């Protein structure tokens, strides 16, 4: 019922905008037209030959996994980055967006998840900042408040504009940011970058009402989000990017959800039907005691309570789209964040104090998702990076001598096949795959019982990927309990004994033994 109504509504919206603005694909309806955009950074091609168009009165969702190129596309449009190739047309005119200020002057505004306004001054001041009305050489407060109130009224929001912005919820703050964009900057193109990540259902709906209002006024909205539900709730068209390339632009009403997920992941559903089940059954275990047991482990606003067991010698794969809570779960298990719900039991003992150093002591290791920011210590040598966690466990005064350090480092350089002339190289000079191996070595040196690998193969070349997958399987054979988090379905299926699926910060299913990619994608997309 719900779905049908939603579809109907969407249809009517399309019809409305269609009536008012003619056929949707007509060229003169495009406020923004980006053609053949290409952008490379040292070592990475962030965008390659991407076309994108935004029409008047359209809500256009941009979707893609990490590294798909969404943020680069937006940065190019807002002048933060200059494209290497391609052209941008605004209202049919060729433009070169030189800087974020320039893009604002052109009528392109961005509202981020974290509102960049001043929370300690009034709502009216925030809206009118830089455009305050003056009278007799001083600010005309009454007029300013009135203008601000009217501007908010345009979005059907009625709040006390003289109160500090900080008094209001994030949702209202976002509306204020949008109002400022409309009122002061006379925006034609509004970019909403993950605006709903910190909003609850009610607030999200409030925001959507505002978006619909703006849409009816002919403003083009680019909507970036990870939430599939919301995309289908509000977007007219969806552009899918993957690995810096355009997968396609689709009418939201004619793209089934599971197709969208498959496109984001780069899988072809038709092909998937033919993949045979290759995994063999694992022998059932009778005893209830598991090595690591999470019972209702969760953190409000971050991860809904999750039950998960991990046993020695097995690999549990975790799949889910970006923002589904996979990394958040890894952080909770490793003690980076302290859960406020449920319990975590390791070796039969309940963990009370959550921190990485505590996890290190009891034998839980994490290879973090963001290798550069959370993994390597770039300006230290490979040797120092490898012994870092072990040394942290030994403490301040039990210092590993240099020969001992070298011995450990050499052992793992050989064991994991790290390609380097010497263990005294700085780790930042290594390739991504080798850096990943160094982090793996860092943890293996501490001899952990549980190894959590968050996207261990991201951004590394195919050969190194296979090597790391093999390594993980080998480690499990040696009796380590591994958790393998990845957005690449096929590698999860290849290495895992069990697969758990996360969606919208919840664990929605767990498959043991036989499961195929199609089932997983359907589960991730919430369609049976």
């Amino acid at each position, binding site marked *: 019922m719900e779905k049908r109504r939603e579809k109907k509504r969407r249809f009517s919206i399309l019809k409305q905008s269609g009536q008012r603005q003619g056929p949707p694909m007509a060229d003169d309806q495009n406020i923004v037209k980006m053609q053949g955009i290409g952008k490379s950074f040292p070592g990475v091609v962030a965008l390659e030959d991407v076309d994108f168009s935004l029409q008047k009165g359209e809500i256009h969702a941009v979707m893609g996994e990490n590294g798909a190129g969404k943020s680069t596309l937006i940065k190019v449009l807002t002048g933060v980055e200059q494209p290497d190739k391609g052209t941008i047309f605004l209202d049919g005119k060729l433009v070169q967006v030189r800087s974020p200020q320039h893009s604002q002057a052109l009528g392109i505004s961005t509202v981020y998840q974290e509102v960049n306004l001043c929370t300690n001054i009034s709502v009216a001041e925030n809206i009118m900042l830089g455009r305050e009305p003056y009278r007799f050489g001083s600010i005309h407060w009454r007029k300013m408040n009135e203008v601000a109130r009217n501007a908010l009224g345009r979005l059907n929001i009625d709040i006390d504009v003289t109160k500090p912005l900080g008094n209001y919820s994030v949702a209202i703050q976002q509306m204020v940011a949008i109002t400022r964009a409309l009122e002061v900057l006379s925006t034609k193109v509004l970019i909403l970058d993950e605006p709903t990540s910190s909003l609850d259902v009610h607030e999200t709906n409030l925001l959507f009402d505002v978006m619909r209002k703006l849409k009816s006024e002919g403003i083009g909205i680019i909507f970036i989000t990870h939430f599939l539900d919301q995309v289908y709730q509000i977007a007219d068209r969806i552009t899918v990017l993957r690995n810096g390339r355009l997968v396609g632009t689709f009418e939201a009403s004619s793209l089934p959800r599971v197709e969208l997920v498959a496109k984001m992941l780069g899988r072809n559903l038709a092909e998937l039907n033919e993949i045979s089940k290759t995994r063999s059954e694992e022998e059932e275990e009778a005893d209830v005691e598991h090595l690591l047991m999470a019972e209702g482990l969760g953190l409000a606003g971050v991860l809904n309570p999750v039950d998960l067991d991990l046993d020695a010698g097995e690999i549990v794969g975790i799949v889910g789209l970006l923002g589904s809570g996979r990394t958040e779960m890894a952080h909770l298990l490793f003690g980076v964040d302290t859960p406020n719900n449920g319990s975590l039991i390791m070796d039969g003992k309940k963990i009370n104090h959550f921190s*990485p150093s505590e996890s290190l002591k009891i034998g839980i290791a994490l290879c973090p998702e963001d290798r550069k920011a959370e993994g390597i*210590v770039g*300006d230290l040598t490979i040797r120092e990076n490898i012994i*870092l966690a072990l040394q942290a466990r030994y*403490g*301040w005064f039990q210092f590993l001598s240099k020969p001992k350090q070298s011995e450990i480092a050499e052992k793992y350089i050989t064991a994991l096949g790290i390609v380097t002339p010497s263990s005294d190289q700085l780790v930042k000079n290594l390739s991504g795959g080798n850096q990943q191996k160094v982090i793996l070595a860092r943890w293996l040196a501490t001899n952990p019982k549980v190894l959590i690998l968050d996207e261990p193969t991201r951004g590394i070349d195919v050969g190194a990927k296979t090597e790391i997958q093999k390594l993980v399987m080998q480690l499990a054979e040696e009796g380590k309990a591994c958790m393998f988090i990845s957005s690449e379905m096929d590698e999860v299926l290849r290495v895992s004994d069990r697969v758990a699926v996360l969606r919208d910060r919840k664990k929605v299913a767990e498959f043991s033994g036989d499961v195929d990619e199609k089932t997983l994608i359907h589960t991730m997309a919430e369609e049976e």
Partner: protein
Amino acid sequence: MKQPSLLKRFRESRLFWPIVAWVIILLFNVIVEPGFFKLGVIEDPVYGKHLYGNIIDIFNNGAPLMLAAIGMTLVIATGGVDLSVGAVIAISAAMGAVLINPALGNKLITNDILTKNATNTPLPIIVLATLAAGTLCGLWNGMLVSRARIQPMVATLILMVAGRGIAQLITNGQIMTIYYTPYFWFGNGFILGLPVSIYIVALVFGLIWLLVRKTSIGLFIESVGINAKSSYYSGISEKNVKLLAYTVCGLCGAIAGLIYCSYVHSADGNNNGLNYELDAILAVVIGGTLMSGGRFSLLASVIGALVIWTFTVTVYSLGVPANALLAAKAVLVMVVILLNSDFAKKMVNRITERRGSHDKTAN
């Protein structure tokens, strides 16, 4: 065969530039005043025979700065900064002076008592209290930075401003002159003909070097300075590493305060150790430690401190008025920072490249 490799290693070592800078300043002095390096032996009524000369003075008077630079190195290596070193010097000096003051505990205070060469507090207590005061200051900074998560510059700014007030509160708003000969030994005494302060610096340097290089603390400090998040994820207690760095820095400031107060025979909350924090930061920068943290060298920082101190002495000896010293120092700062900047490196690269291409075309 070994000779060139040793030379090359020295050229690539982080000690190279600070030493070059120091040698240049020393050479300049010799040119201006040929007798600059002359050392002599003098008989002192209190401390006996000892060496005297410009170099001895530089080491003796530069001791507080060298100590401050040693402490500052650790703090900067963690990615922080300690702006309160000068204030800590003032607080420690005030602490020492007030304990020495014979008026302490006397009900009836006369001029006679105040200027007496005696004190009611045992010397070890005076020294310990001085050191404790500075260490406590460092601990406070460390708590603010590591536990309260206040940005280092802001956190230590609090003590930088408040510290001088605290120092004046301790001395009751007075510039306190002290008359207690045993205490003067720290800043004026001699052992085997060399100033005591040199031995103190050497001892502190040695102990802290052992602390950071013979335990894992040095590695952790560098690791935290390069990437605090990765370090935390590796199980390093990043908070305690920072706390330790600031505390040690406070202790170094206290020892500097002890020598300083002993040398000038007084405690002045407003002027003791004035601008020492800035000189210490500069010394660390000259020593090649990045302000963003990471790899550090204690020895390079000490040489950096010597560069600054020698520079200061040189400027004075040239007859530049004291109030113009800051301007002269600013020039030094500018040169050092420009040489360290990416801009300068790019320029140097461009010049060498151009020369390279020029050579090619010439051929």
